[in-house]
C-alpha cells in the first residue's frame, strides 16, 4: 500500500546539473564555468588560510562544546555580522533598531524574510530583477507569495543595466511592494548600479514606500573592499529607510558548506526590534529550531579579532584580485583574437559572475565541441578561469561566436 504513487520524478536543479555533466566528461581540457564557488589558479577549491587557522584553534579548544545555540543564533556572530554590514558607526545599530537573526546562509535568510513578510507585512507583492538567482522565485513561492513580478534589469544590447526600464518598473510597482535588490555583484549578470543610480533607486523606494530586501552574498568578495561593497545598503540606512538584508558568508569566508548567514531587519525602534525578533524566532523554531554552530563560530572569531580580521581582508583581496586579473586576461585574449562583438562588459561587470552575452545555442556548442560548461543563459563563473586555461576558453568563445553570430548585440560604436 503506497500513499505516494502520484509523486513524479522532478527535473534536477539546473545549476547542479551542469557540474554533474562536467564531472562525467573525461576530456582533458574540460572547464567548469558553471560552478558558483571560488577556485584558485589551479582550479581547486580554496579554503581561506584564516579559516583553516581558526578551525584548528577551535578544534583544540576543549572549553568549547556543541550545545544548542539560541533560536536566533550566536550573539557574537549576529553582532559582528550586522556591524560588518552597516558599519561600526551605524546609528540604527546604536539605537538598537536592527533585528538580527542567524540563518542557514543566504537561502535561509531570504526564506525567513519571505515567511515573516507573508505573516506580518500587508503587501504580498514581490519584485525580482530580471534576471536573478533562480532560487529567489522558489523561495517566495514556497512562502506562498503568488504575486511575484519582475523589474527590468539586464539590457541585452548593451550587456549593461537597463536603468531606465528598472526605474520605470519600480515607479509603477504597487505602493509598499517588496523589492529584491542585489547589494553588490549581481548574480547572474555581474552588473551593479553606480552610486548615482543607487541614489535614484533609493528615491523611488522612498517615494513609493517600497520595502527593499537586499541580497548581500558578496560583501568584500566583490571588490575586495567591505565598505565599498556595502555602500548601497548603508545608503538606505543613512537615508532612514527601513529594509531587510540577507547576508551570506559562503563566498566571502569560503564557508559554503557550513551555511553561515544572517537576516537583518531595520525597524523603527528598539521595542519594534524586540517584537520583530520574537516573531522571527517563532518562524525559525518551526523551520530548524536553532541554527548550526560551526560556521557562525568561525566567522565570529575572525570578525571580533583585529589581527584575524586583517588577515581575512588579505584573503578577500587574494580572491577578488584573482577574479579581476582573470577578467583582464580573458578580455585581452578576446581582443587579440579579434572575436566579433565588444567585450568590455567583462571588465565592467563585478564579482564572481559575468553575463557573457552568449545564448543557449552558443552554450550548447561550448559544451559539445569545447567541453566548456556554463549556464544556458550565458553566465560564466570567472573563478573557473585560470591562467592555465584562459587561452583555451578565449579560443573556444572566439570559435563559437564566429560559427554562430551573436544575437541582439548592438555595437555601441
Amino acid at each position, binding site marked *: 500500500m503506497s500513499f505516494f504513487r502520484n509523486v513524479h520524478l522532478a527535473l534536477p536543479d539546473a545549476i547542479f546539473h551542469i557540474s554533474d555533466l562536467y564531472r562525467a566528461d573525461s576530456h582533458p581540457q574540460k572547464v567548469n564555468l558553471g560552478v558558483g564557488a571560488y577556485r584558485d589558479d589551479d582550479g581547486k577549491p580554496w579554503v581561506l588560510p584564516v579559516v583553516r587557522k581558526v578551525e584548528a584553534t577551535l578544534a583544540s579548544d576543549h572549553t568549547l562544546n556543541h550545545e544548542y545555540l539560541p533560536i536566533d543564533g550566536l550573539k557574537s556572530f549576529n553582532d559582528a555580522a550586522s556591524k560588518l554590514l552597516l558599519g561600526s558607526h551605524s546609528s540604527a545599530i546604536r539605537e538598537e533598531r536592527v533585528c538580527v537573526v542567524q540563518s*542557514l546562509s543566504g537561502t535561509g535568510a531570504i526564506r525567513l524574510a519571505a515567511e515573516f513578510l507573508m505573516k506580518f507585512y500587508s503587501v504580498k507583492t514581490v519584485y525580482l530583477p530580471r534576471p536573478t538567482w533562480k532560487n529567489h522565485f522558489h523561495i517566495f513561492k514556497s512562502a506562498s507569495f503568488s504575486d511575484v513580478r519582475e523589474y527590468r534589469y539586464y539590457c541585452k544590447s548593451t550587456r549593461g543595466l537597463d536603468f531606465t526600464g528598472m526605474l520605470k518598473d519600480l515607479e509603477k510597482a504597487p505602493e509598499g511592494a517588496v523589492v529584491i535588490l542585489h547589494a553588490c555583484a549581481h548574480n547572474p549578470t555581474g552588473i551593479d548600479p553606480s552610486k548615482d543610480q543607487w541614489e535614484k533607486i533609493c528615491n523611488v523606494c522612498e517615494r513609493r514606500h517600497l520595502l527593499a530586501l537586499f541580497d548581500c552574498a558578496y560583501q568584500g568578495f566583490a571588490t575586495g573592499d567591505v565598505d565599498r561593497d556595502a555602500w548601497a545598503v548603508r545608503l538606505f540606512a543613512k537615508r532612514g529607510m527601513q529594509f531587510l538584508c540577507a547576508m551570506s558568508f559562503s563566498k566571502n569566508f569560503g564557508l559554503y*558548506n557550513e551555511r553561515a548567514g544572517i537576516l537583518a531587519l531595520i525597524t*523603527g525602534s528598539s521595542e519594534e526590534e524586540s517584537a520583530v525578533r520574537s*516573531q522571527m524566532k517563532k518562524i525559525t523554531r518551526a*523551520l530548524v529550531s536553532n541554527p548550526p554552530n560551526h560556521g557562525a563560530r568561525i566567522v565570529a572569531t575572525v570578525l571580533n579579532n583585529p589581527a584575524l580580521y586583517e588577515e581575512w581582508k588579505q584573503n578577500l583581496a587574494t580572491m577578488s584580485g584573482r577574479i579581476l586579473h582573470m577578467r583582464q586576461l580573458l578580455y585581452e585574449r578576446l581582443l587579440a583574437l579579434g572575436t566579433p562583438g565588444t567585450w568590455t562588459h567583462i571588465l565592467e561587470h563585478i564579482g564572481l559572475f559575468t553575463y557573457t552575452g552568449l545564448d543557449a545555442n552558443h552554450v550548447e556548442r561550448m559544451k559539445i565541441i569545447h567541453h566548456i560548461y556554463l549556464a544556458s543563459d550565458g553566465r560564466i563563473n570567472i573563478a573557473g578561469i585560470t591562467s592555465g586555461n584562459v587561452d583555451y576558453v578565449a579560443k573556444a568563445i572566439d570559435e563559437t561566436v564566429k560559427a554562430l553570430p551573436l544575437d541582439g548585440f548592438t555595437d555601441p560604436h
Partner: protein
Amino acid sequence: VQPLAIIMAYLNASRVLPISNHWKSLSRCITTMVAKRSWWCDVPLGPPDPILGVTEAFNRDENPRKMNLGVGAYRDDDGRPYVLPVVRKAEERLMARRLDKEYIGITGVPDFTRASVRFALGTESEHIRNGLTTTVQTISGTGALRVGGTFIHRFFPFNKVIYIPSPSWGNHTAVFRDSGLEVKKYRYYDQATCGFDFNGTMEDLKTIPEKSVVILHACAHNPTGVDPKQEQWQEMSHLMKSRRLLPFFDMAYQGFASGSIDRDAYAVRLFLGDGHQILLAQSFAKNMGLYGERVGHLTVVCESSDQAKAIESQLKIAIRPMYSSPPKHGALIAAEVLNTPELYDQWLVELKGMADRIISMRRKLVESLEKEGSTRNWLHVTDQIGMFCYSGLSQQQCEQLARDYSIYLTNDGRISMAGVTSKNVDYLAQAIHEITK
C-alpha cells in the same frame, strides 16, 4: 513626527492643489510622515518561550543548591555539558584531513546518509538492500519533521491532517502547522497512572479517519518518558495497518533511551516488518551530543526504487528553497563515528554510559524518596525512559519547588533527568517529599 516637517510638506503640496483639497492633502501628508516611520509597529511581541523562562529564572536564582530540571540536553554527573570523547576524536581526525568547504549536495553527505539509515533500520534491512528507502540529511530532527511535513502537504493525496500524541513535544504543532497541515491529537498519556493510555490510544487510532498521518515517538517519548511496551507496539502496528494510517516516526533518542540501539529502534523495525511504508525523522543531537551542529535525517520508505528516486527528487525541491543544502561539520563527525569500527564501538560504550547515568538517577531518586518516607507510588519514575520524566506534580507543586527550593522545572511537571546528579538527587527527593507528603 516633527511639526516643522509636516508644515513644510503641507506647504509644498498646497502650492499645486486647490483650496478644497488642502485639508485632504494635509492629512495625507501626516499619514505619509507617520507611515514612513515604520511598517512594523503592529507586529505583536511573541509570548515568552516557557522552557526558556525556566532557564532564565534558574539563572537569576542565587541559591547554591539550585537545580535546573528544564534543560533539554544531557549533563554529566557534575551537571556539565558533555562532549563525547569519541566526538572529539572524530573531530581531530577530520582536522588532520584538511578537507575543503565546498557545498555538499542538497541531500547531504552520502557516507553519513547511508550509515544513518542503516543505523535506524538495521544493517540487515531488506528495504535498504532493495533500494526502497530514500534518505536526505536535514537540519536535525526539526528539519526532518519540517521537510516531511512539507512533503506530506504537497504529495499526500488524502487529508492534510497530522495526528500527534497528547502531550507531545511542543514544537511538533508549530512545525506541522507551518508546513500547512492541520494538527490534531490522539490520547497517549494517562495522568492517573503517569503511564501509557494504551486503551485511549487504540480507541483513537480506531476513530482517526483512514489514510491519515500519525506521529509516533519511536522511543523515550518527549515530554512524558512513557513508551508503549513491545506487545502494545505490535497491536498498534496491526491496527494502523488495517486502518491504512501512515506512520511518521520521530526518533530523537535511538541508543540514548535504553542504551541499546536495537532495542530503541524496535518499533520502527517492527512497523517496517509489518509492511508499513513509514516516514522517519532521525536526530543525532542527543545520542552523539551534536546538538548545535544540527545533524539529522528524513527517510521515506517506498514501494519501489523508482518511487524512491521520484520522492528523493521532490524532497530536494522542498529543501532547496529552505536552506539550499545542509551544514557539513556535524555530518562529517557523525559519519566518521558511524563508519569507523573502533570509533563506532567507542561511541556505543559512551552512549550506554549516558543512558545508564540517566537510568541510575531515576533509580536513586525513587530510593531516596522511599528513604525520606514517601508513601506515594513513584514507580513511574523508573518505568519511564529517556531524558524526561513526567513526575505527576501539579503546576502549584512545581511553582512551590521553584519558590521554596530553587528547583526549576516546567509547569507540566516534566523533570529533565539530565539535570539530576548523584550530588543533588537527595536534595531533590527531600524537596519533592516535602511538597507531596
